[in-house]
């Protein structure tokens, strides 16, 4: 099978090099145009913060990975990127790699299902640009099926694997319904912003944000439909919130144990969650000693993250089994595109129809004519199938994903010959 793939990813290159080769959606579209003109008949471009990968069926059989790399580096010049930063895949390995990516086992955070959506988006672009041909469609379908099975049949995506998400999941172990709770995010940097988005995504009842730079807080508040509390005043209102997530770059403690004690008193001992995901810490860690206070910092949240990552890694063999099954299914389909079995299946189908009709109607003929009927109908079938058989055999020796394979695939689809294969696992 003539499928090539190159990949620069979190295992082969540092973030600055990955960033340099990252293709935005528009850039991906332009690159596809270029690739179609010069090198590839069909393919898929996947570009995320952790990887840029190009999968493609070469226009000529002598195309090497090197050419695709050169095309990418010419399109997006990046200093310091060299041969060693690329992984190269061919044929079955290329398909297997795409399945590994779609199922999340190749991700920096194992089981990250964000990449599943990114694979879907990439295919969308390939379709819009007519880059997704007959084979890429089939590969994509199998990749998506593998990804869905990995999520539903294994625990590869279970549990939080980022500190921000772990903080939010921990609150769910204390409160049963977040839609009746309120939260305050202190600090609207990247970590605070992600935590705020997770809370909003979980349907938090009311959300407020505060930040030293008021404008930043307002911007995030507008995006998440949250309230803004002036930074100098937030301490007086912490008792109004069930959940406080603090992620500032302050070098001093922002909330003392006494502040927390006062807040607990004002809250009539209602549970009070304090998530300190700042380094250095924003909330006095002594607060954890107070009753009804659930204080957690980076260290404790990292315990959850590490536990979840370990659990996810333990699921990798199960996902690999799914990948292998899907790969075998795909390969079975691919092998059916060889000329000889396709001709055999086609002839068998026609013969089945012919003999069925002859059997049904032969009593309408005299015993002498019945033999003639058999001979004549066989001759008709042979004549009908003669030209298609010659056409398919012409390319029987050609290897790879060529026009002949496409033709065979279409014939199989048209005559329902695919149904003779093992049904795909859903």
């Amino acid at each position: 099978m003539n499928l090539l793939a190159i990949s620069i990813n979190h295992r082969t290159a540092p973030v600055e090099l990955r960033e340099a080769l990252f293709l935005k959606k528009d850039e991906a579209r332009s690159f596809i145009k270029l690739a179609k003109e010069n090198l590839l008949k069909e393919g898929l471009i996947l570009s995320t913060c952790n990887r840029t990968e190009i999968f493609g069926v070469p226009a000529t059989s002598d195309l090497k990975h090197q050419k695709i790399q050169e095309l990418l580096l010419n399109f997006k010049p990046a200093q310091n990127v060299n041969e060693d930063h690329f992984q190269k895949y061919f044929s079955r390995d290329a398909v297997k790699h795409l399945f590994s990516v779609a199922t999340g086992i190749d991700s920096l955070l194992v089981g990250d299902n964000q990449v599943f959506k990114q694979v879907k988006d990439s295919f969308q672009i390939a379709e819009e640009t007519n880059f997704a041909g007959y084979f890429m469609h089939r590969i994509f379908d199998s990749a998506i099926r593998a990804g869905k099975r990995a999520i539903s049949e294994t625990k590869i995506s279970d549990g939080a694997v980022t500190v921000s998400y772990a903080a939010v999941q921990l609150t769910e172990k204390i409160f049963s319904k977040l839609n009746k709770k309120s939260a305050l995010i202190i600090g609207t940097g990247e970590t605070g912003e992600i935590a705020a988005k997770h809370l909003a995504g979980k349907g938090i009842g009311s959300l407020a944000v505060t930040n030293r730079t008021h404008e930043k807080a307002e911007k995030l508040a507008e995006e998440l439909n949250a309230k803004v509390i002036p930074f100098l005043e937030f301490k007086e209102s912490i008792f109004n919130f069930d959940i406080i997530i603090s992620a500032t770059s302050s070098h001093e403690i922002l909330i003392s144990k006494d502040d927390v004690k006062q807040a607990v008193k004002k809250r009539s001992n209602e549970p009070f969650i304090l998530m300190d995901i700042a380094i250095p810490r924003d909330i006095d860690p002594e607060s954890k000693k107070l009753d009804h206070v659930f204080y957690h910092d980076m260290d404790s949240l990292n315990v959850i993250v590490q536990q979840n990552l370990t659990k996810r890694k333990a699921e990798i063999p199960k996902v690999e089994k799914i990948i292998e099954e899907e790969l075998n299914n795909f390969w079975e389909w691919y092998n059916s595109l060889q000329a000889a079995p396709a001709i055999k299946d086609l002839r068998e189908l026609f013969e089945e129809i012919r003999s069925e009709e002859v059997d049904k109607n032969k009593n309408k003929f005299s015993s002498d004519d019945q033999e003639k009927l058999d001979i004549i109908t066989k001759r008709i079938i042979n004549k009908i199938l003669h030209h298609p058989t010659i056409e398919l055999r012409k390319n029987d020796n050609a290897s790879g994903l060529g026009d002949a394979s496409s033709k065979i695939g279409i014939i199989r689809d048209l005559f329902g010959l695919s149904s003779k294969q093992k049904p795909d696992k859903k």
Partner: protein
Amino acid sequence: MVSAIHTINILLPVFYLLTLAVYFYDFIKGEKKLINVKRVFLFITLFLHLIYIVLRTVAFDHPPITNVFEIFTILAITISFSYFLVELVSDIRGTGPFIIVLSFIFQLISSLFIQDLVEVKDVLRSNLLGTHVISALLGYSGFTISAVYGFLYLVLYKDIKLNRFGLIFNRLPNLEMLERLSLYSAVIGFITLTIAIIIGIIWLPVAFPNFSFFDPKIITTSLVWVLYGIGITSKVLGNWRGKRLVLLTISGFLVAIISTILSNFLAQSFHSFY
């Protein structure tokens, strides 16, 4: 029929143990596919238990509520049946083994010591006694389940505070839910125990000539009733919640258990006056 009763009497602790094992296995493994399997086990056990109680009632011509070992078998089924309903209604997983283990213990003790009582005092065949005892048992089942949820609340509370994110953390429902389950069970227990007390106050002095309000069982039950009354009122008024509330449910349960042990095992009867 009696031989069937004897056979089921031996089988019941085995069935409870098997059900407990399945629930415990599910607690450790957390496999989704076990949800229905464990419910089937519990259902079969409860069904067998129900047949056993019906057979006993028919064979010995009185419901099994006349002595402590008969009452233990009723407690076992009411506790597990209440949990079965909680699990079906709330779809909460992970708390089953901690409740079913109590049913197993009660049934085991009952199966070991229960006797075939054909002759009982006429007064113990009264319908009012039946209502009094059944409502008291439902009350105690409610308090038992409430205490289990309260205990689980405390364990999870401590685990979260101390950053212990193990099996308990992963399998139990959240703290708020445990508190709610503990409270609801306590409220149901309180209501049914109130009914038992009202019937007792009206009927017992008439039925038993030796009746005394200073009977240890009446005093301790009243104490348990007052404790839960204070707790529930405080929760309704919004003063008590969380840890303090579950500590009260556990204390109430301990007083109830100690009073049962004292009055039933030391005095060898349910009330001092019969």
